[in-house]
């Protein structure tokens, strides 16, 4: 039976056999196999893990990039306090060095009202600030307050004749506005001056400090101090606060205070491709998982179909075997003549392997004149072709015998009825006529195994003329054998004696030995069949016929 490898073909094969009693395939869609689901789950888990790892890796790299960018931006922002220090420091230092207060006015007039809304100059006398110059609007810082004295004193104490002081920064908040206040001191020739200026932070906090190019593609927010609240916000370039995403933070010294810059890139620094790798992995993984799971399911279903087909094949094989046995029985004679003074017994055994239609035959017919004709033969090969050829030959042989031909002539005539080229088989056959009155057997042999005669306990082959098989030979001779009362003549086919690794003579000798142990004809055949064929798997069939003359 050919192997059907497509689901559709299998379905057709199965439905085509429906009337032969083969169960149809279930119509409902079968549930997926556990293995397919396992593959699916494992694939999904692995895909998810890979995607997550990829995403984490991307996030880590992106964070690293943003942090690096933040450091660069921070470096650019450090320029801002230096600028303010320079703007305040230059006129103050000039005033301290010269004592000319007009230098403060001329130095600061371009800085008010922008960037400073107010600028004042104090001279420190015995640790107390005395206002000596005032430009622009009034200061938000109450310069007469203790806090102001502390602030200005702190700036003054940081200045020495050798170097300028530190820029002292403070944040001034009211309900509506915020300002940053800067104090810077210079001392020379025993004179100490402190410049104080205030800068208003615009309501939207835009464009306070000049920011550098590293911030060009970033959303950023700059906070006074380390806390990031709306009240400490100094500058930003976005409305979406607080800033979220991959954050870079950098702390920038701002005079005696610090600023904290928080920023995030507007588009991924590593590029959108790097950002989407995780999604690509997820998509590819899902696709691959789905394909593998589907393939697994398909393979499993095909295996199921194959198993079903194997079961069908097995069933068909059994059915065919049953047909074969029925046919074989039909092709062999059901009833043999039972003339007085003669016992006839036969056994036929199909091969135990494969489809068992064989080509072995036997037959016995009555002839006029108190005689019987018997034949045994073997068509080479197996199967229906061998069996039908056998049937044809057996009937022809008995027909020619009944016509009155002697055994040699029967074989000569039948030899023309089989052609090894046309039929693919050849046949061996043995024919004999037993005269029940005299016990004389006339035998002719076309390539068949020799008759055995059993006298008492002695069994031996009967030598005689041997011609070629039917279909090959055209001329046969007869020989006469004279039986004594009680003699058993055994005719058989090669399936009974032939073994693959030994000479046919060894098999015949074994048959003789086994046959010598029994006396009763039926028992004899049973003994032979049991002794020679039991437990021997064989593809060949075997037949044996025994004739005992008891006048």
């Amino acid at each position, binding site marked *: 039976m050919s192997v059907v490898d497509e689901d559709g073909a299998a379905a057709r094969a199965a439905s085509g056999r429906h009337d032969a009693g083969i169960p149809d395939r279930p119509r409902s869609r079968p549930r997926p196999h556990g293995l397919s689901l396992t593959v699916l789950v494992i694939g999904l888990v692995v895909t998810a893990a890979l995607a997550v790892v990829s995403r984490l890796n991307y996030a880590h790299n992106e964070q690293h990039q943003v942090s690096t960018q933040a450091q660069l931006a921070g470096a650019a922002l450090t320029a801002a306090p230096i600028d303010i220090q320079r703007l305040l420091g230059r006129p103050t230092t000039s005033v301290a060095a010269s004592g000319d207060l007009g230098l403060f006015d001329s130095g600061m007039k371009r800085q008010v009202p922008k960037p400073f809304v107010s600028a004042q100059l104090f001279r420190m006398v015995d640790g107390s600030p005395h206002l000596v110059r005032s430009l622009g609007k009034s200061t938000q810082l109450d310069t007469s307050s203790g806090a102001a004295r502390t602030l200005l004193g702190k700036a003054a104490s940081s200045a020495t004749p050798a170097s300028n002081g530190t820029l002292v920064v403070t944040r001034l908040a009211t309900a509506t506005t915020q300002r940053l206040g800067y104090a810077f001191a210079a001392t020379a020739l025993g004179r100490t001056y402190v410049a104080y200026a205030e800068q208003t932070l615009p309501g939207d906090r835009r464009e306070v400090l000049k920011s550098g190019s590293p911030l060009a593609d970033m959303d950023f927010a700059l906070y006074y101090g380390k806390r990031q609240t709306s009240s400490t916000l100094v500058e930003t370039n976005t409305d979406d606060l607080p800033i979220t995403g991959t954050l870079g933070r950098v702390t920038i010294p701002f005079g005696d205070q610090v600023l904290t810059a928080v920023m995030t890139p507007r588009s991924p620094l590593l590029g959108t491709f790097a950002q989407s790798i995780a999604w690509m992995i997820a998509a590819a993984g899902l696709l691959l998982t789905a394909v593998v799971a589907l393939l697994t399911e398909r393979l499993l279903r095909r295996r199921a179909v194959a198993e079903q087909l194997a079961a069908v094949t097995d069933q068909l094989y059994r059915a065919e075997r049953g047909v074969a046995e029925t046919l074989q029985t039909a092709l062999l004679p059901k009833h043999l003549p039972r003339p007085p003074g003669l016992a006839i017994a036969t056994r036929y055994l199909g091969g135990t392997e494969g489809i068992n239609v064989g080509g072995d035959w036997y037959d016995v017919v009555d002839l006029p004149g108190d005689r019987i004709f018997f034949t045994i033969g*073997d068509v*080479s*090969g197996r199967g229906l072709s061998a069996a039908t050829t056998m049937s044809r030959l057996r009937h022809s042989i008995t027909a020619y015998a009944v016509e009155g031909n002697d055994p040699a002539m029967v074989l000569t005539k039948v030899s023309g009825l089989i*052609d*090894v*080229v046309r039929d*693919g*088989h*050849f046949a*061996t056959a043995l024919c004999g006529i037993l005269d029940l009155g005299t016990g004389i057997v006339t035998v002719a*042999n*076309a*390539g068949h*195994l020799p008759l055995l005669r059993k006298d008492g306990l002695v069994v031996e082959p009967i030598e005689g003329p*041997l*011609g*070629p*098989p039917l*279909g*090959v*030979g055209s001329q046969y001779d007869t020989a006469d054998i004279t039986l004594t009362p009680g003699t058993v003549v055994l005719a058989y086919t*090669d399936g009974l004696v*032939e*073994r*693959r*690794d*030994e*000479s*046919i*003579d060894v098999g015949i000798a074994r048959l003789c030995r086994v046959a010598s142990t029994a006396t009763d004809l039926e028992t004899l055949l049973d003994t032979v069949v049991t002794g020679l064929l039991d437990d021997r798997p064989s593809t060949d069939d075997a037949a044996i016929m025994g004739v005992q003359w008891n006048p």
Partner: protein
Amino acid sequence: MESIDQTLSIAVGSDPDGTPVIAFAGALDLTGTADAERAFAVLPASVNGAPADVVVDMTDLAFMDSAGLTVLLLALKQGHAIRLRRPTSIIRRLIAATGLTELLPVEP
């Protein structure tokens, strides 16, 4: 029995005098008959109307059954004049028991 090589191998050659030689080795049974028949089919079955000689070399043929015998009989019927070379005694006996000693002579 299981030690016998179950497969058939075929070699086609010729003797020094030009006679074609088909050498069978292994087992010539039902499984090998198609190949064996093809080996004969490529040889001319007759030369100038007379049967064409062919030598079947059985030196390495361990086993032959009636299916193998069928191949030889087919070749005979198609006109080949077959001589067997060095068949085993078991095969020789099979041929004799089938009445084919004259039709399938063994080389001297």
